């Protein structure tokens, strides 16, 4: 199994953190993982993204040339990354923010009203975790428990009190496509 | 024109700034552009952009520009001015650029009385690279490389560039201004204008230190950042004219 994922949106939408969580969870499950962020000028005002690989065997190239999954959190990201998805790939769209239709018909496309759900829980800041929850349920690449454990390890001290909300956001995301577990 | 109170200066290109919301660089760019407009020297001005958040200044100013290596803008400007002594030459530099890596170049350009103008934007940190400590970072101020707050014992004291350069004989005009509120913005513009006028008179080196904000790396809302500036930076970096050669009146 080699899963290649791109997560993209505006800076501040937590795209880099979402990827880190995923990579961390993969590592906790004994998988090989890598995480590559966009960096630098692109981040000021513009769009940020990260590329995550989770695999059973050693990862030779950590590049994500042809992602199997793309998360998009804004329109520019959709325009940039949807065309790169490999045929049959999965496109997860935060439909609270991205309204545009996708032209390709060789993809599995899932719309997640992530901001709406997140705001209900506590704030739009949690949208990324809703998306991640959806992904977990849809693919099972890593387990909810690993992600929850990763959250506990990686959340900075000053945001530790948000842990329950984070878990809840994950669960709500999962719930969209089945029972959270 | 007569009907217009406030328009985009001709000296600015239409390109939108890439700066963060509320960043002081935008205000300072505009002030420089207005002065160049008012003096009517756009077509004879050559600017030098330095390395820092304002590295792309060459895109925004509508006159000839060179982009210099980090810290070396005063040397680059010297090269230009020596070849073209009748042009208006200025540098636009941040505090990391000017007061850290480029300190030798600024002091020597000043000591030489190089007939250039330096717009020195002091925002108490390295904006572009993500908020590291600068030579102007205040004691106790947290940055990404002084995570526990600047310890004067380990990292020393901030440098007061205007005071330091004022000990030299080469400068004709040196002032420190701020842009943390509208009256200060007015004063800042006056000082910038005076500096360029002094250059046009050819009496020596001119520099305006502008206290500015970096809301992003300070982790504050823009208006908050200006209050922080007023409260914390002004006591360490007093405003005023530090040098005004004869022919340039103190605080006119």
């Amino acid at each position, binding site marked *: 199994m080699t899963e290649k994922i791109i997560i993209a949106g*505006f800076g501040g939408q937590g795209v880099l953190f979402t990827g880190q969580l995923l990579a961390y969870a993969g590592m906790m499950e004994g998988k090989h993982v890598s995480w590559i962020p966009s960096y630098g000028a692109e981040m000021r*005002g513009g769009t940020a993204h990260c590329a995550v690989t989770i695999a059973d065997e050693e990862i030779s190239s950590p590049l994500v040339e042809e992602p199997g999954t793309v998360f998009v959190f*804004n329109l520019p990201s959709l325009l940039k990354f949807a065309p790169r998805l490999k045929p049959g790939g999965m496109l997860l769209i935060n439909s609270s923010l991205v309204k545009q239709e996708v032209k390709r018909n060789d993809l599995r496309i899932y719309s997640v009203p992530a901001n709406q759900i997140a705001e209900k829980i506590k704030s739009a800041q949690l949208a990324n975790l809703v998306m991640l929850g959806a992904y977990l349920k849809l693919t099972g690449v890593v387990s909810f428990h690993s992600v929850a454990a990763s959250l506990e390890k990686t959340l900075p001290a000053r945001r530790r009190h948000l842990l329950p909300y984070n878990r809840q956001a994950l669960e709500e995301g999962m719930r969209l496509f089945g029972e959270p577990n | 024109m007569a*009907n*217009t*109170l*406030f*328009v*985009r200066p001709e000296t*600015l290109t239409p390109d*939108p*700034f890439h*700066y*963060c*919301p*509320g*960043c*002081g*660089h*935008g*205000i300072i760019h*505009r002030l420089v552009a207005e002065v160049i407009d008012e003096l009517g020297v756009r077509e004879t001005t050559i600017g030098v952009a330095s390395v820092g958040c304002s590295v792309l200044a060459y895109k925004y100013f509508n006159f000839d520009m060179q982009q210099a290596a980090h810290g070396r803008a005063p040397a680059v400007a010297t090269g230009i001015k020596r070849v073209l002594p009748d042009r208006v030459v200025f540098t636009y530099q941040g505090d990391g650029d000017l007061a850290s890596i480029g300190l030798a170049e600024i002091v020597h350009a000043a000591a030489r009385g190089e007939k250039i103008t330096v717009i020195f934007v002091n925002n108490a940190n390295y904006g572009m690279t993500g908020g590291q400590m600068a030579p102007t970072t205040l004691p106790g101020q947290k940055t990404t490389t002084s995570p526990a707050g600047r310890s004067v014992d380990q990292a020393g004291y901030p440098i007061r560039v205007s005071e330091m350069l004022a000990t030299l004989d080469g400068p004709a005009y040196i002032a420190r201004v701020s842009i943390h*509120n*509208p009256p200060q*913005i*007015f004063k800042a513009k006056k000082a910038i204008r005076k500096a360029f006028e002094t250059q046009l008179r050819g009496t020596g080196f001119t520099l305006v230190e502008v206290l500015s904000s970096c*809301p992003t790396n300070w982790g504050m*809302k*823009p*208006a908050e950042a*200006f209050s922080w500036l007023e409260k914390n930076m002004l006591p360490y970096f007093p405003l005023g004219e530090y040098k005004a050669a004869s022919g340039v009146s103190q605080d006119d």
Partner: protein
Amino acid sequence: MARAGKVKIDRERCKGCALCSAFCPKKIIKPSGDVNSFGYHPAEVRDLKNCTGCGICALVCPDVAIIITRKEEAA
């Protein structure tokens, strides 16, 4: 005789920094609810008739997003 100004804010240039709102002596500038194409909430003048044309909003705007044209009025 006060001079009133016509304040125009360029929605696409505005980054929603709120400096204009903070410094407007009449407190008539507010962030708008919707976002521009860069994801910012642009500023809006809510109460243009109270605007004195003082120019302060334009003076503090770091993105030169505000222009003001003059209209003379009897006080």
